[in-house]
């Protein structure tokens, strides 16, 4: 504890510097391979989708794994982010950054509006309510002809590897920092024991809504990246199957583990890409994979543990204060 006081710049430590170096290395290698043409379009697509799914999985984990609220409407927030950002870009000729921000904020707003009434529900009831609301969002866009309706909506492609990668890093860092703060601990205490959390002075409704809104915001951001990368969006993409896919990534990696969600998202994206040629076997193989994981690692690949670089900062043993 005493060594913490002496550190004037707590963010600059060996762990964070090496983490940054690793991130830049991953980014640079992909960027280099892409520039000299070694990396095929298909691989690039997979990598960018992986970034989008990481944002979705980590933000779902904030709601389900950390705050303990089983909400299955993430595709709905993704749809709001996708359509709202596309609207700003296409219909209002706005800059793509404005579109992403607007999409994320609208998703967060939807998260608050949906969260206040539904978060009073517990367990399965919350799951059913959010599942239904996610579908309502999809059907809303299906019937809104201004944004293409059922025929879909074309959006110019402005997202690339650089955007997707660094926005993913930003999202993960924000969520990680939130969780490792007093406010994040308040959210985790709700998962652990709601009655005790209230008795200790935690406004549980407030923190559930905050976690829900933050999760929805990043789902909206992921949706915005998706829309501005894929040329074309249609309501069918954001069905409840998408919500389940995201939930599966979180459960696969481990509820309550950010690095677990990242691993889960990457595995699922890669498996989906590898099996793209055999679409009829895809769902079967994914199901078998899940069953195997659930038999051998019932709490997911990482459980609630984090894979981290703490061993690089030995003097801070036992004290979790790091950022990525």
């Amino acid at each position, binding site marked *: *504890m005493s060594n913490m006081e002496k550190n004037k710049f707590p963010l600059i430590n060996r762990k964070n510097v090496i983490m940054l170096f690793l991130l830049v290395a991953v980014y640079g290698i992909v960027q280099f391979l892409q520039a000299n043409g070694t990396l095929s379009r298909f691989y690039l697509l997979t990598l960018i989708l992986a970034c989008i799914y990481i944002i979705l999985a980590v933000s779902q984990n904030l709601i389900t794994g950390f705050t303990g609220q089983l909400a299955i409407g993430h595709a709905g927030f993704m749809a709001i982010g996708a359509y709202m950002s596309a609207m700003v870009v296409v219909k209002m000729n706005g800059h793509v950054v404005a579109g992403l921000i607007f999409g994320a904020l609208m998703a967060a707003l939807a998260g608050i509006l949906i969260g206040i009434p539904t978060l009073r529900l517990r367990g399965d009831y919350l799951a059913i309510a959010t599942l239904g609301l996610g579908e309502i969002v999809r059907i809303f866009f299906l019937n809104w002809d201004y944004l293409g309706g059922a025929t879909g909506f074309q959006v110019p492609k402005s997202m690339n590897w650089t955007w997707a990668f660094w926005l993913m890093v930003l999202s993960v860092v924000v969520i990680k920092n939130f969780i490792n*703060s007093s406010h994040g601990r308040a959210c985790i205490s709700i998962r*652990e*024991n709601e009655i005790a959390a*209230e008795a*200790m002075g935690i406004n549980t409704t407030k923190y559930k809504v905050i976690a829900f809104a933050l999760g929805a915001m990043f789902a909206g951001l992921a949706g915005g990246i998706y829309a501005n990368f894929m040329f074309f969006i249609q309501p069918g993409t954001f069905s409840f199957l998408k919500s389940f896919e995201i939930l599966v990534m979180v459960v696969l990696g481990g509820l309550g583990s950010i690095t677990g969600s990242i691993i889960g998202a990457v595995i699922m994206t890669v498996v989906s890409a590898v099996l793209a040629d055999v679409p009829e076997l895809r769902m079967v193989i994914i199901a078998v994979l899940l069953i195997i994981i659930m038999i051998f690692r019932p709490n997911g690949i990482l459980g609630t543990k984090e894979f981290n670089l703490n061993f690089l900062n030995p003097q801070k043993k036992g004290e979790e204060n790091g950022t990525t």
Partner: protein
Amino acid sequence: MALLKVENLSKSFSGLKAVSNVDLEIKEGELVGLIGPNGAGKTTVFNLLTGVYEPTEGTIIFKGQKINGLAPYKISHRGIARTFQNIRLFGDLSVIDNVKIAYHQHVSYNILSGILRLPKFFRGEEEIYQKAYNLLKIFDLHEKKDELAKNLPYGQQRRLEIARALATKPSLLLLDEPAAGMNPQETQNLMDLIRWIRKEFDLTILLIEHDMSLVMGICERIYVLDYGMIIAHGTPDEIKSNPRVIEAYLGEEAG
């Protein structure tokens, strides 16, 4: 002045009156016991005081203000903390995180400075850490600060619950059977601890207990609850010789 004044408190669960017309008055600095046979409604009284249940009738006045109907977290902010009969720790979190969470209402930085890792965040976290660590030291749990709460032995879990309750900086502490499941030696240590924290933290304490030696040993006044009603109150000696209390505990005298 009375710190806590409860008047005519009643709670019905769809027709079943769990607590009826309870009057309590606790002065600042007192250590008061609430006893009664199983099912008498003691824990229901605690749940009413802490806002888990809303009273059907009656008023609860704390520090001169009416608090019935407030949400539990608001009552905690007013200065009432409690422990639970069936331990409710944050089991999958470390011992120190359990205490840190209870400090949340006094945290000095907001969400944004937490996310942006502003200097305020590091100062605030350092402060919370020090306070939580010092509190754990008082309860002799500091060497186990990084262990998961659910892995602590039973007696230490009970102590951690008290430590966590104290972290909210209460003026009234409600202890729900703190000695349940402890052996006589542990009970003795707990009694010393309760006396000590009461002085050290300037607390008023209301405790529910089955262990008569503990109640009679440390409480200045005792209320006896039976079938949801207060049947007696007074000093330990008065309670010991009260015929209604003996009847409630041991049954009516034969013949």
